[in-house]
């Protein structure tokens, strides 16, 4: 599904503060599986994740999505693919203060121009599935940690992406909520979605739901490469 060929990422190239985040990464991420990128902080997990999710471009190397090369795409095409293919769940819920939960959840769909009434229905349905439908009109500041995380998950799903990307999703959740999160991931898998998670939480990478664990250290994959 997702192929990375010789991917390198260097920040501040040419300057004294030049930093190589990824060094020659070759990776295949399988479809309809849960893959976890594991490694200490600074190993390049988040950088790798952002390249996979079309959020940044590598300094060298190519990335293919379903056989289609995406790193050379002009910006407008890349944006289009990113919007339709990926759903992003971050460490922090990153909900926008000042607007309601429902508005937050519908936000990523605005550029696609869907009819507002239909979009609202979709959003409410998503919120209901995660049991926070009653909070739809609330301001995001009033949500608890777990509720906020769930709202951000609904937001990630609003465009029906078939790949979910989660960056350290359980970092600010307690054990119970973390287990609940993994159950949601299992649901995604059963719906045919592909999930890529970065985590250094054993609860995540030792879970039985996870199909493949990729170990990263200092910008390179340890051990046998997939």
């Amino acid at each position, binding site marked *: 599904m997702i192929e990375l060929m*010789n991917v390198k990422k260097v920040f501040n190239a040419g300057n004294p503060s030049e930093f190589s985040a990824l060094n020659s990464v070759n990776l295949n991420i399988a479809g309809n599986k849960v893959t976890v990128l594991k490694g200490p902080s600074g190993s390049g997990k988040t950088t790798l994740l952002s390249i996979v999710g079309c959020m940044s471009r*590598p300094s*060298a190397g*190519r990335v293919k999505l379903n056989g289609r090369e995406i790193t*050379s795409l*002009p910006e*407008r095409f890349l944006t289009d693919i990113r919007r339709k293919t990926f759903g992003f769940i971050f460490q922090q819920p990153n909900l926008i203060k000042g607007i309601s939960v429902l508005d937050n959840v519908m936000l990523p769909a605005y550029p696609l121009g869907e009819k507002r009434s239909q979009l609202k229905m979709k959003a409410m349905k998503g919120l209901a599935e995660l049991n926070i439908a009653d909070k739809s009109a609330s301001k995001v500041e009033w949500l608890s940690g777990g509720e906020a995380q769930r709202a951000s998950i609904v937001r990630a799903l609003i465009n029906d992406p078939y790949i979910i990307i989660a960056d350290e999703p359980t970092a600010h959740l307690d054990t119970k909520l973390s287990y609940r999160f993994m159950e949601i991931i299992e649901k995604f898998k059963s719906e045919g979605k592909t999930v890529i998670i970065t985590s250094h939480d054993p609860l995540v990478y030792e879970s039985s739901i996870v199909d493949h664990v990729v170990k990263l250290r200092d910008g390179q994959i340890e051990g046998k490469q997939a």
Partner: protein
Amino acid sequence: MILHPTVIANLLAAYIAGGMVLYAVFYGVQILKHWDIQNGHELQLVLERRTYLISTLLSYVFGLQLLSLFLYIFTADNLTPLFVGAMCAAGTLNVDSFGYPTLVLKIFNFILAGLWLVLNYVDNQGYDYPLIKKKYLLLAFVAPVIIVETILESAYFLDMEADVITSCCGSLFSSERVTGLGSEIASLPARPMMWVFYSAMACTLLCGIFFYFNNLGGYLYALLSLLMFFISLVSIVSFISLYIYELPTHHCPFCIIMEEYNYIGYLLYILLFGAVVSGLGVGALIPFRQVESLQAMLSGFIRKLALASVILYAAFTTLVTYEIVTSSLVISYEVVY
């Protein structure tokens, strides 16, 4: 040199355009040499990022280039009070030997700039930069011409002296003076030239409409629109100007831009230049109809270009016909030879 705001604006625009074009060409050459979308080497990715910047820059530069043609004529018209014997841009352009050559190059560069903008727009619609090499090849060709134009334009303005007596357009475009392109065109007989103009225009418009509906004859249309461009310019000097001025001997193509004639010259020239660029754009894009990443949009876009060209030529003809019909001048066979 005359420190007039319009002169400064012209030179500034020319230097900015020239500078940006040089910068772009330097990287463009790199792109032409090393571009290979298949490989993932660092240089390739750097080039991919860079072409985004360069293309955006050049879009503005070439847009500026389009405007600079009209700014140039406007400046020449504006400076006429400074020169004895000049009453319109024709006289101002004649104050030193660089005025008219600069104008010719500006016209040439207008067309090239317009074509580049068309190519650039289409290239941006494909996901794999399908026209990138053609685009930068065209740039490599256009760049030296723009540099030469900038040099000539600088020479023109810097060489300008206020105490020069220049020729009036009445003599530059008079049918009496034996020498000079202006008078050769002016002495073309008006009535036959009208026939040439209208029949050529009819052919061109028909060809364009045929292409729009049947997608055949694109190259022919491009050729016809280029031909029509020259015929129209000659016609303006030969007979259209006579009707606008209502003077049987005044052939000047520059007086029509003056305020006293309601600036109609600008409108005529904008229509004409727009028509030729879109017409030539049709011919330039036809070879790429088979490119995969452009399949979805190219045929439709080419047809739209052809339609735009046809509409602009039709508007030009309508305006010309209106001027002829409402003019109080009557060209009779005996008088205008």
